[in-house]
């Protein structure tokens, strides 16, 4: 069933949409072509011509990107070729275009739930990339060892097989290369690179075998003119001296072979072992680097937790911490609990210290209630003391001390008219007219008919006149 690209309604056999009238002739043709390419791709995938299938399926999607079947099959083909990430990308896109009843969802879920498989695939891809880098740095021995492990862990990874075959051909190990290429052809018959490498490997293998055959033939057949002389492989030696001579020559040749042939072989074996050890060491270094990175992240995380906890601890402890506040509150309560013998000024001093410390640090509601209760209970008495101290300082024209004491007096008893009046007077003496006016107004509001109230009215008039 086809749907109109313009209005989304089902299309009939007509070349226009019977619902909105849009011209859908060319649109239909494109969709048919997309399906045709999909069918071709499917046929090729069925006979394991995966490269050909990829080409057709991509063509199908280039025509119509919402062809879900083509996209899902393309993902499957990529997965079969070991290109898991490309496969996942296609399935994710397929899900994006068709959210319901889409097999791509199952494919993705299968991969997601099989963490071991996904980890193995990813690890082999990483090792393949490392091996490719090693090849570019001319470390072919290490790359070869690494690639052998990759193809053993992830036999589908075609690019790893091909790279390994290329290295083997470079080392003239054509039979080894041929084995790898046959494995590639089993996965993907249409792989052009594998076919090309295989043809060259076979050509070289044939040349080698012909050369060997020819040299063995040369050893027994000698042609002289029209006559063919067949030389026997063994000759009879009758002389004891010649036997001894041959033995000596054999010994010398043996020693030379030992020196010139076995020596390099031994060195080569040693080198291979060293390379293997080097590859293991590289792998170990990579693993350790990953562990170090993980530990560093853990250290950072722990350091952050440590700093946070330290900050919290500092907030509780120390000269300005909440604990300090609780300490003074307890001392104030202890003094208050003495009953009539309690010195309210001492309690006030403790409460002062809490205030300086920041009373908002008493985070618990119960402590705040105790603090407020203490302040209320000693309020009037302490306010009077502060007022007296302030008044004495005011008379001596020590306005700074006076201001501090009057403020405290007002804080403990906000309706102490005398303290409010002299606080206003102190502000006036300090030429802080705004505050002076504010407190004179408070006096007028609290005691409008009093003497202080009248004086306050006069002062406000004076301030306004300025």
């Amino acid at each position: 069933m086809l749907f109109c690209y313009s209005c989304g309604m089902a299309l009939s056999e007509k070349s226009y949409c019977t619902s909105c009238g849009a011209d859908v002739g060319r649109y239909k043709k494109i969709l048919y072509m997309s399906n045709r390419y999909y069918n071709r791709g499917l046929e090729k995938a069925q006979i394991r011509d995966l490269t050909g299938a990829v080409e057709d399926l991509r063509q199908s999607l280039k025509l119509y990107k919402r062809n879900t079947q083509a996209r899902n099959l393309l993902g499957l083909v990529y997965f079969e070729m070991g290109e898991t990430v490309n496969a996942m990308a296609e399935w994710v896109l397929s899900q994006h275009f068709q959210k319901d009843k889409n097999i791509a969802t199952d494919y993705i879920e299968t991969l997601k739930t099989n963490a071991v498989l996904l980890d193995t695939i990813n690890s082999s891809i990483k090792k393949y990339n490392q091996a490719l880098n090693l090849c570019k740095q001319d470390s072919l021995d290490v790359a070869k060892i690494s690639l052998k492990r990759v193809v053993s862990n992830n036999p589908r990874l075609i690019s790893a097989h091909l790279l390994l075959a290329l290295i083997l051909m470079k080392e003239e190990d054509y039979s080894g290369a041929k084995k790898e290429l046959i494995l590639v052809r089993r996965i993907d018959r249409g792989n052009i690179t594998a076919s090309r490498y295989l043809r060259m490997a076979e050509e070289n293998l044939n040349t080698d075998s012909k050369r060997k055959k020819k040299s063995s033939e040369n050893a027994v057949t000698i042609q002289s003119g029209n006559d063919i002389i067949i030389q026997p492989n063994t000759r009879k030696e009758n002389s004891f001296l010649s036997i001894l001579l041959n033995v000596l020559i054999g010994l010398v040749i043996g020693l030379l072979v030992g020196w010139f042939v076995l020596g390099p072989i031994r060195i080569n074996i040693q080198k291979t072992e060293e390379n293997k050890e080097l590859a293991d060491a590289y792998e170990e270094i990579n693993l350790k680097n990953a562990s170090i990175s993980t530990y560093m992240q853990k250290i950072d995380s722990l350091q952050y937790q440590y700093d946070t906890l330290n900050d919290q601890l500092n907030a509780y402890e120390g000269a300005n911490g909440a604990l300090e506040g609780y300490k003074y509150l307890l001392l104030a309560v202890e003094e208050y609990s003495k009953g009539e013998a309690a010195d309210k000024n001492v309690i006030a001093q403790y409460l002062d210290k809490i205030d300086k410390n920041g009373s908002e640090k008493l985070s618990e509601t119960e402590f705040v209630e105790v603090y407020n209760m203490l302040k209320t209970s000693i309020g009037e008495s302490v306010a009077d003391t502060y007022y007296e101290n302030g008044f004495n300082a005011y008379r001596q024209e020590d306005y700074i001390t006076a201001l501090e004491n009057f403020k405290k007096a007002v804080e403990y008893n906000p309706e102490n008219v005398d303290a409010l009046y002299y606080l206003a007077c102190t502000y006036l003496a300090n030429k802080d007219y705004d505050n002076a006016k504010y407190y004179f107004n408070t006096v007028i509001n609290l005691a409008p008919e009093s003497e202080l109230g009248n004086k306050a009215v006069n002062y406000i008039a004076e301030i306004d006149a300025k």
Partner: protein
Amino acid sequence: MIDFENELKKFHPSPEVDDVEDVVNGHDLTDMVDFIVRTVSDAEE
């Protein structure tokens, strides 16, 4: 005979699982249908 250096240049690093998002975002999703729709709407305008 195979030229190893030239052949090696044809090999590229394979994307890793962490790169799926980049691979998806890197897809060119413009298709022939988009082209037709755009052409038809341009013609109508």
